[in-house]
């Protein structure tokens, strides 16, 4: 009788067996930052006690899935058994909306058990199952007036909202009838996602023709673009940016009629530079890409960047921030300086996006 059991990877022998099994199935990335995030790992054992399949969950994402199919059983039997065990595990934890990032060869298997493809590139794809899904997300967004033809989008982390972000938004508005500002929802930055969203809203309250909305799990999230939050190899970055961009194009831009994506030029971050480059490759002709040079200080040299702002918060050099920040963000930082500095000490790095 085949059995699904918990695998405890902290046990060296179990860990070795698990890693060897995955290695044989073409999964080789066992870096600490990947494996530390796994909440649970299940193993499928056959009648002889051999490991014949495994899969893990990290948050709401299925990872490290590999199966040896039984040649005598109907195709996909073990795969289905494992996926359904993982789903039950997540359901028991109250998670009914899940994702999987996987290789092209597994697309059919996942679609066969009710997953829907969100985005696909030559190297891999993202699928989703459960609610609230991408349709619910799209419906939660404010509608652009039907008369607007030129609809633009900006995706920003705004950690925190600077005059540079404001400048980018104003420039985008001058090019478009309506503008969606998607604020990254992932909560791994110095400023929490609520704080960032609230500051962008406050800092643009006087402008018309735009909607400031959370990006949800769909835009520059851990799911679609983990390298934005953790340093990674260039190849991984290229793959992830392609997935993130294809998700934006197919699931967000096309249904909402967005035909312009506005980005700030990126002189410092290698990852963001690759991202911008990939956008120009994949988005046109459906969506035009407009890269706007960064706002500079009065000296015409130093760019207004949120990274600099975070460094100044760390050093307590608030007077210097006047040139960088709109009044809403300044006020927020003055009010919450101690909290922010405490967060910085606790480990949110100033250099992480």
């Amino acid at each position, binding site marked *: 009788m085949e059995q699904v059991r918990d695998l405890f990877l902290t046990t060296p022998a179990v860990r070795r067996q698990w890693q060897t099994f995955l290695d044989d199935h073409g999964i080789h990335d066992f870096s600490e930052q990947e494996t530390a995030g796994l909440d649970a790992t299940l193993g499928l054992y056959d009648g002889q006690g051999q490991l014949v399949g495994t899969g893990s969950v990290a948050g709401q994402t299925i990872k490290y899935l590999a199966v040896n199919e039984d040649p005598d059983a*109907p195709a996909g*039997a073990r795969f*289905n*058994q494992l*996926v*359904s*065990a993982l*789903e*039950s595990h997540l*359901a028991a934890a*109250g998670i*009914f909306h899940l994702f999987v990032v996987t290789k092209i060869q597994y697309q059919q298997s996942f679609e*066969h*058990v*009710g997953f829907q493809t969100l985005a696909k590139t030559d190297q891999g794809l993202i699928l989703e*199952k*459960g*609610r*609230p899904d991408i349709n619910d997300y799209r419906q939660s967004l404010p509608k652009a007036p039907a008369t607007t033809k030129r609809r633009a989008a900006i995706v920003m982390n705004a950690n925190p909202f600077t005059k540079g972000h404001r400048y980018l938004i104003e420039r985008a508005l001058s090019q478009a009838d309506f503008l969606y500002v998607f604020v990254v929802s992932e909560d791994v930055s110095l400023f929490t996602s609520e704080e960032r969203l609230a500051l962008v809203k406050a800092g643009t309250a006087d402008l018309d023709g735009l909607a400031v909305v959370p990006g949800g799990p769909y835009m520059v999230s851990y799911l679609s673009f983990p390298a934005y939050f953790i340093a990674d190899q260039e190849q991984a970055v290229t793959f992830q940016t392609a997935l993130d961009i294809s998700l934006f194009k197919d699931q967000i831009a096309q249904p909402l009629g967005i035909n312009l994506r506005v980005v700030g030029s990126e002189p410092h971050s290698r990852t963001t530079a690759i991202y911008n480059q990939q956008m120009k490759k994949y988005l046109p002709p459906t969506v035009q890409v407009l890269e706007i040079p960064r706002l500079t200080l009065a000296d015409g040299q130093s760019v207004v960047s949120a990274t600099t702002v975070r460094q100044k918060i760390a050093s307590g050099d608030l007077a210097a921030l006047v040139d960088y920040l709109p009044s809403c963000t300044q006020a927020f930082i003055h009010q919450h300086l101690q909290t922010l500095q405490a967060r910085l000490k606790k480990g949110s790095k100033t250099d992480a996006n």
Partner: protein
Amino acid sequence: MQIKQSALAGTLESSDVQIMLSPAKQGIQFDLVSDVAKQFGDQIKATVLAVLAAYDIDQVTVKVVDKGALDPVIKARAITACQRALAIADQPQWEVL
């Protein structure tokens, strides 16, 4: 009636069916994935809807992934999903059975 929480019942193994209920604001939205949807789709839907009706649930999103389950299996899984979604898994509604 609306459900209290999302709920999952059943598995994706052969001869079983997996039923997921999620809260919705309006009406019943039904989505079926099955190899035999063409032949038995209507019957599977009718069985699940009958159970929902027995629990007075009329605002819900239903996702069914069928792996060739027989009617009594579908009914049993639907009942379990409803009991869980209404947070009454410990108080079986015998009259529904």
